[in-house]
């Protein structure tokens, strides 16, 4: 398999629009890297540069120490799975999976073995004589993956492979990709805008915004210790609640509420005494029973949890807040909920970096 190194990669289009700024990443052998970010953040462009489908404007791309920055796509020994499957409709599944090897004039018996092995892994053995239009979306995506597997590439690239599937199928196919990675032990790069896919699949996540890398880390690092306000609000569902507060004599003073700081928080925010900061609280870090009053305007029961939407303050004149409370709650619009924050994140107002 492969070690991939992206060093100071820039992408500048002919019209001088820069899509990717100084991208640095070392992908270890067998690692599953997920590039995540909103539309237009440069994640697909980065993947396409790795695949050789886009030129690299600046920087170096190394695969197992070999410079492949300007190597044509066909010589990179990578396989890409696209969102729209890109299967040949007139060919059977067997022929689709064998196609790339047939083009390379490989021995038909070797091709046969590889196709059957890949079909076995993906549970497609019974479908090999069918045409793509006879398969479901999930099966078609598995065929696209099978076509990559038979090539035994150094690196697998996935460009939003689950976007065309419905929610149920997406979940099932996501688990299949996860199992596939474990089974093959292959190095994989995966692009998605869906944070659930990123959190569940990745060994490490690269979070991007506006062409810049915001943070690289394990899913739990990004969730528990977001590097900045963008990552904090992008990762997590529902997104993190954000409040403007002032640090003053052991209290965090908000528009309509004040919260006593813990000793740990006082130490962390010692340099911010008298200054404004941004406080972030994840909805799941809110529990009932504190002294923060929230005027409820909506209550969504999800079974195990309840999402309580409201505004801080007894009169509801503070910031908007969403709390993910355990169990089944029956707040009505206008009710006052007493809540407590169990964990808070702090960000610098100017740099938006985590404190």
């Amino acid at each position, binding site marked *: 398999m492969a070690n991939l190194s992206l060093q100071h990669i820039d992408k500048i289009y002919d019209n001088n629009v820069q899509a990717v700024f100084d991208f640095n990443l070392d992908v270890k052998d067998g690692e599953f890297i997920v590039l995540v970010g909103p539309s237009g953040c440069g994640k697909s462009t980065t993947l396409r540069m790795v695949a050789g489908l886009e030129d690299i404007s600046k920087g170096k791309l190394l695969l197992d120490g070999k410079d492949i920055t300007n190597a044509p796509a066909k010589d990179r020994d990578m396989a890409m799975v696209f969102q729209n499957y890109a299967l040949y409709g007139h060919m059977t599944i067997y022929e689709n999976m064998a196609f790339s090897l047939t083009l390379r004039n490989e021995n*038909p*018996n070797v091709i*046969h073995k590889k196709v059957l092995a890949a079909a076995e892994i993906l549970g497609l053995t019974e479908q*090999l*004589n069918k045409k793509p239009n006879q398969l479901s979306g999930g099966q078609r995506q598995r065929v696209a993956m099978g076509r990559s597997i038979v090539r035994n590439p150094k690196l697998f690239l996935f460009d939003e492979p689950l976007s065309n599937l419905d929610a149920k199928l997406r979940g099932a196919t996501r688990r299949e990709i996860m199992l596939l990675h474990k089974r093959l032990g292959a190095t994989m790069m995966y692009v998605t805008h869906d944070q659930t896919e990123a959190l569940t699949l990745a060994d490490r996540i690269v979070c991007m915004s506006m062409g810049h890398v915001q943070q690289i880390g394990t899913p739990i690092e990004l969730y528990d210790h977001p590097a900045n306000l963008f990552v904090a609000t992008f990762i997590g569902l529902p997104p993190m609640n954000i409040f403007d507060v002032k640090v003053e004599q052991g209290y965090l003073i908000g528009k309509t509420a004040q919260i006593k700081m813990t000793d740990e928080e006082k130490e962390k925010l010692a340099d911010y005494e008298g200054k404004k900061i941004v406080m972030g609280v994840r909805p799941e870090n809110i529990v009932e029973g504190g002294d923060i009053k929230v005027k409820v305007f909506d209550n969504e029961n999800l079974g195990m949890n309840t999402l309580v939407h409201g505004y801080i303050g007894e009169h509801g004149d503070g910031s908007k807040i969403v709390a993910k409370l355990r169990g089944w709650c029956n707040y009505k619009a206008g009710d006052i909920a007493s809540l407590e924050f169990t964990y808070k994140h702090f960000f610098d107002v100017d740099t938006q970096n985590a404190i």
Partner: protein
Amino acid sequence: MNEDEYIRKDRLRFTKNSLASTLAIVAIVFDVLYFLNIYKSDVNRSVGDFYYQIRIGGSIILNLLFMLAAFLSSEGIKNYKKSYGYVLAVLGIIQIVRIFILPMQAHATDITVGGVTSKVMENGQFITVIIYLILSAAACFAAAYVGIKKSNELEAHMASLKKAAA
């Protein structure tokens, strides 16, 4: 049976019999060359009214039927349907028999046009059309042989797989 041989047979489960199918199409191509060569003989009625008889109508219908049957057999044999192999063998025999109908008769017939007597089909054209018919027949036989052989192999292989699974 060694592993390579086993895999070669196992491949038949997922690949079409394109060789047999192509050979059947080649038979059609030679048949087309044959009838184009025959029908162009009548330019400016240089051979009188030899071809203006019921036989030419029959020839046209036979050609159409041959092409249709060969094409359908090509598709059938592609999917290892053995019965189409037998149809192709019969088509090959028909192509051989056709040598003795129109070409042989035309070659044996003298015709006088404008006081000049000549053969309806000269030696050169006779040899050419015979070659086309023989090649068409050979392609039919080859397609039938390859088709039936591979169909038998696949049948035996499927039976062994079924036996192994049971």
